[in-house]
């Protein structure tokens, strides 16, 4: 297992290099000018100086290699410095966002908590409701519960979040006034009152995203349970006199979780990607919103870095899914 993991990590390096190059190349080919927002009164020679200041006078490949160096060498050094108070980085140039004039990683660290709280919580809630629903739906296939569950998950899966989000705002924020419609990032949880306000502003975005996640995962769980419920070993377990909870929650569930855990693990990187649309609807200034504004502003270092981080996470969680698969299913061997 260890050698498998190491081998996979090693093969991830060329994969990620290719991905980073493709992202960089695509952004290079994309139309748009980072200085387009500047007033037309700025004279051309000043404009040219600004381009030089941003490093845009350098050829494509030099900027790419510089970015690689900053991402893989200088930024980790800064992280170590800030963690241990060392000074390895020695004031080297960091990746700087063109729109914020601040290091990209500082901005990401500011945005990460909102995304983790809202999108991460929604994923967790989604998984926690999806698993029991999937199990019961499969065990009582075609029952009243299953019909309702299947219907709701079809709705949740097919109605886009920008619709359910706005609908919830209209009902619960505008008409009922139970929850705020805008997520307030400046809110600090210090006491019970502020905690309640934090929960209140999280309820709607979490509910919208959790419904979407739960619909997907509960369908997987249901299908996987159904696959296993008719297996011969289930009959064997019953013939041994095991009770139904043991048969279903030990024998069937353990087998059914194998594909579902993979799906759940592969879904984790999407949390970091933030929920671009839902974050917009509820004005959560998380990573998804950051990416969108960076694209609008032609903030290439930000887009490049964020996109590449997503790619790293996807590669990483693919590996984690494979490892989990091997841990859950004894028939899979990696050496």
């Amino acid at each position, binding site marked *: 297992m260890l050698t498998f993991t190491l081998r996979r990590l090693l093969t991830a390096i060329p994969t990620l290099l290719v991905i980073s190059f493709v992202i960089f190349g695509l952004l290079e080919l994309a139309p748009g000018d980072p200085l387009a927002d500047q007033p037309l009164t700025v004279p051309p020679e000043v404009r040219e100086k600004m381009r030089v200041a941003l490093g845009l006078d350098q050829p494509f490949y030099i900027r790419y290699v510089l970015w690689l160096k900053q991402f893989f060498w200088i930024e980790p050094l800064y992280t170590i410095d800030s963690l241990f108070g060392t000074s390895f980085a020695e004031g080297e140039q960091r990746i700087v966002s063109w729109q914020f004039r601040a290091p990209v990683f500082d901005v990401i660290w500011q945005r990460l908590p909102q995304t983790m709280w809202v999108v991460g919580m929604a994923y967790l809630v989604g998984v926690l409701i999806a698993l029991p629903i999937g199990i019961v739906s499969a065990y009582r296939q075609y029952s009243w519960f299953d019909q309702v569950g299947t219907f709701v998950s079809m709705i949740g899966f097919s109605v886009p979040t920008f619709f359910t989000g706005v609908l919830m705002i209209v009902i619960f924020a505008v008409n009922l006034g139970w929850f705020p419609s805008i997520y307030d990032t400046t809110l600090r949880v210090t006491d019970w009152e502020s905690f309640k306000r934090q929960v209140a502003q999280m309820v709607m975005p979490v509910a919208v995203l959790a419904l979407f996640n739960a619909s997907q995962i509960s369908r997987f769980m249901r299908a996987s349970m159904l696959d296993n419920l*008719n*297996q*011969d*070993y289930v*009959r*064997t*377990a*019953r*013939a*041994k*006199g*095991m*009770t139904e909870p*043991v048969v279903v929650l030990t*024998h069937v569930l*353990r*087998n059914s979780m*194998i594909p579902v855990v993979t799906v759940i693990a592969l879904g984790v990187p999407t949390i970091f990607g933030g929920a671009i649309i839902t974050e917009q609807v509820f004005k959560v200034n998380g990573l998804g919103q950051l990416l969108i504004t960076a694209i609008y502003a032609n903030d290439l270092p930000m887009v490049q870095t964020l996109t590449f981080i997503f790619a790293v996470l996807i590669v990483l969680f693919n590996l984690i899914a494979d490892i989990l698969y091997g841990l*859950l*299913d*004894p*028939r899979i061997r990696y050496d």
Partner: protein
Amino acid sequence: MPDGATSVLDVRDLKTVFRTRSGEVHAVNSVSFHLRPGELLGVVGESGSGKSVTMMSLLGLLPSPPAEVREGQVMFEGKNLLRCTEDHLRSVRGARIGFVFQDPMTSLNPVFTVGFQLREPLMKHMGLSKSAAQKRAAELLDLVGIPDARRRLGDFPHQFSGGMRQRVMIAIALACDPKVLIADEPTTALDVTIQAQILELVRDLRQKLGMAIVWITHDLGVIAGIADRVMVMYGGQVAEQAPVKDLFANPQHPYTRALLRTIPHVTGARAEKLNVIEGQPPILYRHPEACPFAARCPQAFDRCLRQNPPRIPVAAAGHDVACFWDFATGAPRDV
């Protein structure tokens, strides 16, 4: 005929129906039989004759819906298993009545160790601690002839060969010293040499442990080798029932005779074609009013189409047949 006092298992008028989209399928029609202590009852018949369904009905192992055990009485240790509580049924399954299924490749749970699957019934029915169950599990594996039993308890089913897995299944079925072992085509999925080994094992275990066995099979050769008494099933009914010697020496039912003719002979000239029984076994959408074998029977006459023959005792003790034709006189029976 059945004698409640001396039989461990006494089944009367068992009827099982499957509810399907195209109507009800009567899979078991008024089957009655009994099992004496320590006896090996062979059950034969072609696919779809209701052998397995009969045995699964006894212990409520059929999925319901679609299956429904509609009528009958299954007396075991003074209780009717069709009318008792689910809890009592579970305390019988795996403890007092053991089950071995056809396909050892799929009958064991792939994600649990063989030790875990063996310990389960021991801990549930005999109240053993985990370590005591582990010890007993090793003894059981040893009993069914798996070498290095203690170490192999930690192995998963896929690390065993087919024959070894069937030995494990037998060990699980025998874990709690059952009074009755029901073996549903336990050697059908195995090749001939492994089949011979399993037969030898069962013969041996029967002598050591003294339980009664119901052995379901297609293979009359196997029956001749191990059974004390034989029950031939057709169309969800008992066609003929007799002590094994009597059945082979003096078959009374045209179906039994036809089955015996299909066995290829090892001596003499090789036959041009294998003997077959022409036609297909019936799918019964109603409770049969006529003899279900009539359509394929060379002896059928008008009464066979009007009336379903009851089980008629014949000359030898313990031999009965559900047929109106008497081969001894070459004329219809006078009943």
